[in-house]
């Protein structure tokens, strides 16, 4: 099963590469990639901004920038989608810098199982409130890691590419962050 899955992945990458090459010469050939990635990129942005119309505006900016820079695009060992996410990440940053709106941060239960690793994780519901107060205090760079790793479920290689840091740095920072949050959760429990 795993082998099958891998070969399908590889095939789709090869095909994607052909589409990219064609689109570099003729932008109309970009259409299959636009259709394939519009939804994931839209949702990636929607999970950070508050409404659909804003998400749609930013998404169209992302694809416009992608088309404008496509002639210079080179395959860099990460899927083409990572490049789109990287543009999307930058566009979202720019949006919040200009608009001073409140940024949404999506967190789900996987986050908890990552924090507690092999231990039995405590009940999710009572922890929510405490997690909110902890995450609200985190710097933006750490928020990006939480979102990309535990909500978008991206591999470290892609996270590193999107955030323009090294893969090792992304890993180390994420694990330190999990430790930090776990410590804070325990501290809060003791205090309460």
């Amino acid at each position, binding site marked *: 099963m795993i082998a099958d899955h891998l070969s399908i992945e590889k095939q789709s990458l090869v095909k994607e590469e052909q589409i990219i090459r064609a689109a570099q010469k003729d*932008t*109309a050939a*970009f*259409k299959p990639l*636009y*259709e394939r990635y*519009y*939804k994931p990129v*839209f*949702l990636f942005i*929607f*999970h950070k901004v508050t409404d*659909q119309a804003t998400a*749609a505006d930013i*998404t*169209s900016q992302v*694809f*416009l*920038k*992608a*088309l*404008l*820079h*496509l002639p*210079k*695009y080179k395959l860099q060992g990460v899927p083409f989608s990572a*490049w789109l996410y990287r*543009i999307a990440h*930058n*566009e979202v*940053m*720019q949006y919040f*810098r200009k608009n001073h709106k*409140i*940024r*949404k*941060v*999506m*967190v*789900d239960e996987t986050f908890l199982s990552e924090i507690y690793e092999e231990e039995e994780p405590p009940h999710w519901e009572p922890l*929510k409130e405490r*997690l*909110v107060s902890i*995450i*609200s*205090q*985190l*710097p*933006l760079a750490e*928020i990006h890691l939480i979102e990309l790793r535990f909500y978008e479920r991206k591999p470290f290689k892609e996270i590193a590419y999107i*955030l*323009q840091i090294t893969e090792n740095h992304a890993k180390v920072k994420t694990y330190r962050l999990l430790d930090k949050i776990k410590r804070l959760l325990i501290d809060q429990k003791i205090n309460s």
Partner: protein
Amino acid sequence: MKTYQIMFEDDPPTDMEINQYQNFEQLLQQHKAIVKRRKLLQSLALGAGLLVVTFMLIGILSSDHHEKKQEVSPEPVQEQETMVTDSAASGQTAEKKDTLHLKEPVTSPEQSQESKPTKPASNPEKETSLPLAAEKEAVFMEARPVGGFTALYDYFEEKLQYPETAKTDGVEGAVLLEFEIDQEGAARQVSVLQGVREDIDQEAIRLIRQMPQWQPAQLNGEPMTSKQTLSLTFQLDQ
């Protein structure tokens, strides 16, 4: 500053809702329009840049002569003096402004300066009415980078260090800079007329400060300080 709204679930749009925002044709049209505008702007920017430099030089030259004149004779009206006419103001190319003619004005310097940008076409008539004996000619050479502008742009291209912070934030834009080229051909008094943001502006200033020497502007073979403006475009390679 750190205002997040932590959410454990949101109300994601349905596939149909997302699909209604998709519009590939519109994207292609926007792309086409931008590519077209960029090409046009590139050609206009060079022309406009040179025009700005020309106006500044004329400003410097006429103020120089104005000062000299005031030292010699305090009575302003109907005195013999030299001034720069705007032979290049109507032209937009570098070639046209290599030489500027100095000649006698009929009016006071203040009046001449006012009429200068608006009435370049009337100059030939004035010229013919002037006494030949009083006519002087000054040869002005525009400052230029050693090796020409192509070499200068190659230098910018090679030495540009895109600020990491700006790269991460995906910030692009053009910085309009003003600086003087002194008699030695070095850049000084570098300032930003129109910036993008701090890190990009600083990099632009650094590039200008460290750029190779220029051939200074010359008036009658004498090197002189001149003002220049230049636009540097920061664009990310994606």
